[in-house]
């Protein structure tokens, strides 16, 4: 009899405490040294995270907070004691006792040469960070010779892996120069400015859009961002979200409006204001940053730290702004 549990006609009394969130996992701190100074950062951080926490300015090109580290540009390399080669700060995780040097001769030389290799092969005229990086490391892309003639349209897209024409001793340096690809109303692709950082591929793929309209094709110096068979964007899987533009570090991918204003010489960043608002189209509530020049929206972005967008938008939010500018003919612009 005694082993039979009592039948409860009422539920047991409630705890007097309201339910609490589960205890947060203890963050394990990892100690390492950066340039001789001891730093403590949460386990799982990268060397770049640690450098930034410590205020050590580290150049990056292919790194972006909202994408998986690609570590292809190698401009963030640092020296890690005991390692045969330099390590990419953007992706290497910190380890206890790690000794990192960020400004040795070896690091400076690698960063300088990497910048020179990029500067000599790619048009960096619209890459915002480039001038400061070049000045900081004394990089001189001219050391490899003047830029060779750009390729004809679509020429680089037909190059086959393993079959390049050997260098012929000419004094010029090969580049990725080629005409701008303009095949739609919304954005242009100027691959002579492409440093092949893979960010647009990641944004088009699993890091944001999951559309997979573009990938890297070809191999080596002939590698390029491409749709399948280099078809134009209207024929490709592209949905014009423009997230590739949002992550491009060099201006290779650009709003058509910005491109045309730059061509016409009317693009004036000093005269632009940025206003944050909420996208009016659907209920998600994405933050839009409207870049306005002369009372016209010239470009739309979203802040990387927006918890809703993480910097990514869709075609409507990014490109669907012309209705804002439908004004009565003859009406005076408001200020």
């Amino acid at each position, binding site marked *: 009899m005694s082993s039979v549990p009592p039948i409860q006609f009422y539920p047991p009394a409630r705890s007097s405490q309201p339910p609490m969130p589960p205890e947060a996992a203890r963050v394990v701190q990892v100690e390492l040294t950066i340039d001789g100074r001891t730093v403590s950062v949460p386990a799982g951080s990268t060397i770049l995270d640690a450098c930034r926490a410590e205020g050590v300015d580290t150049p990056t090109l292919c790194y972006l907070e909202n994408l998986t580290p690609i570590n292809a540009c190698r401009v963030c390399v640092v020296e890690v004691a005991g390692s045969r080669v330099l390590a990419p700060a953007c992706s290497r995780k910190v380890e206890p006792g790690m000794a990192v040097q960020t400004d040795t001769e070896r690091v400076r030389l690698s960063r300088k*040469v990497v910048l020179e*290799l990029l500067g000599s092969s790619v048009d960096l005229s619209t890459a915002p960070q480039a001038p400061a990086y070049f000045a900081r490391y004394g990089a001189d892309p001219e050391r490899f010779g003047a830029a060779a003639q750009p390729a004809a349209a679509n020429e680089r897209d037909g190059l086959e892996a393993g079959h390049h024409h050997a260098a012929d001793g000419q004094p010029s340096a090969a580049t990725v120069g080629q005409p701008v690809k303009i095949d739609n109303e919304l954005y242009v692709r100027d691959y002579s400015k492409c440093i092949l950082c893979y960010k647009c591929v990641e944004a088009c793929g699993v890091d944001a859009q999951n559309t997979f309209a573009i990938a890297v094709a070809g191999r080596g110096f002939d*590698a390029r961002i491409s749709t399948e068979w280099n078809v134009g964007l209207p024929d490709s899987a592209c949905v014009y979200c423009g997230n590739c533009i949002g992550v491009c570090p060099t201006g290779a991918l650009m709003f058509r409006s910005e491109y045309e204003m730059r061509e016409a010489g009317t693009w004036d960043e000093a005269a632009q204001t940025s206003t944050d608002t909420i996208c009016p189209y659907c209920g998600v509530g994405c933050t839009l940053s409207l870049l306005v020049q002369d009372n016209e929206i010239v470009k739309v972005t979203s802040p990387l730290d927006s918890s809703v967008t993480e910097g990514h938008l869709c075609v409507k939010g990014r490109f669907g702004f012309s209705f804002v500018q439908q004004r009565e003919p003859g009406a005076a612009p408001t200020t």
Partner: protein
Amino acid sequence: MDIHVIAPLASPAERAAVDALLGPPSSGWAGGSRDSANDGHVARGGHAARAERDLLLPALHAVQDRIGWISQPALAYICRRLTVPPAEAYGVATFYGLLATRERAPIVAHVCDDIACRLVGAEEVCSDLARTHGPAGQPSADGQTTWLRSPCLGLCERAPAALFTVAGDAPEQIGEAPIDAVGVIARLASAAAGRPIAIDGASLSAEERLADARISVPQAGDDGLQLLARVGRVDPGSLEAYRSAGGYAALNRAIELGPEAVIAEVTASKLLGRGGAAFPTGRKWAGVRAAQGSPKYVVCNADESEPGTFKDRALLEHDPFVLIEAMTIEAFATGASRGFLYLRGEYPLAASRLRNAIALASAAGLLGSDILGSGFAFEIELRIGAGAYICGEETALFNSIEGKRGEPRNKPPFPVEVGLFGKPTAVNNVETLANVPLILREGGAAFATIGTEGSAGPKLFCVSGHVRRPGIYEVPFGTTLRALLELAGGVPAPIGVTADDTIRTILLGGAAGVFVGPEVLDTPLTFEATRAIGATLGSGVVMVFDRTADLVGTLRRIAAFFRDESCGQCVPCRVGTVRQEELLARLAADRPHGSRADELRLLGQIGQAMRDASICGLGQTASSAIESAVRAGIVPA
């Protein structure tokens, strides 16, 4: 994943090529004909559909082999079958040198113009072909044949070499060497007339096939050989012959010992990896066994593509079962149930012998669900590369198997923990694995007594260039370079001239290796002694250049090789290899920027950035041979 396909339908032949590999399409969603009764209101996709991505490269091969090139409709069909976005599949197809994404003649001669072949007239072969057949890549008048330049085909002992690929319903591939332009054209004409090119067919007796071994392995049949003991003596097509020559005794022994004891034996043997990095094999296996995560994989890296290297080819062609046995032992020891053997696409004979070996071993219960009645289950899949040196880098190799572009991954994490399909993986070179049955038969301690303290065991060297009998040679570690060259018949020299005076330089370790001078001829060939002289054993290449050799041309070919074979992922290697090649061309044309000393200083800086900042070993060693040539005074200052 919503696959956006824009191409027209693939031709029946293209679909048949893909279906022969993948089976008929299961529904209209997978590229079959639409059937509203079955295809309406169904969910297709998800992990199950995407999990077939690793069949992408085999599917591309299927179309390439059948049609001769991969058209947009054919690729679109593959994409629908395997749920791969067309842009990504195009990125994969355009990554490989042996795959064509533009229409190409179905019969192709890939003519090697790499460093060993160019020592014996490859450039003349190419210029003769350009004159008689037309420029490289241009199809013949009937559109049936063409020829292309190729990086090292691994037939250096018989240079100059060519690889013939014939697309069609019964595709054929065969490497031929030595061969001249007349021979190339005759082969192309024969294939165009519908006659077979292959000589390794049923028409030859086993004896005739074995006779060939002495060309690649001049020591074949000698007593006292360990790694090469069966080469030329035991029919590579017969499991019975392998077993009666002592084969599979080691697997029996391994099963008796148990996995931990096998790893202990391999550790005690002090076996170091023979692929170039010299990592302790026992430690690698123990790491995989201890690693969290399942399933675990074993991978045999048979993507031997280092210019001047052909040792793995000789083993695979003449002793294929030893690899199957060794991989089985490795899987048993590490706890893996699936193995991949990744063979470079330029080794068709090795491929057919390995296929045969895997089939025979499976039929005999030596692969499968219950190996030798022990309950241990293991399968091996042969995967064929498609012309990419970078895929010999272990993480690039994983990506290639997984159906991605063969781009290396950052390390750490290392393959022991995160390897193939993100799982713990033991990846070993062919020659490394060939030592394993030996270790289990003789015991790890006994094996460790062969060679020297720091470099245990027998070692294969690929001797080529200016020696009398180029080929694979097996010697214990510690043999001097001089003794090795004598074994290879010595260096042809005018009467009264010593070898030391005839040799201008020796390339140790391949294109990623180091040029040394004749003053190091008495250096023992060990990991430690070569390191001490600033050189490397690398993949075991010993290529001899006499005083007549065109060394500047050789250096430019090495630079062109790395420029072609860089995957393009990281900046130092992608652009650095271009600048290195341009700089050498300027020096050769005597048009330096500034002084020659300025150029050499710049070359050193490019080299250092590539060495320090590249993602993988390709970029890190792309300047090694060239910088060593500057140090050795081969590049005039």
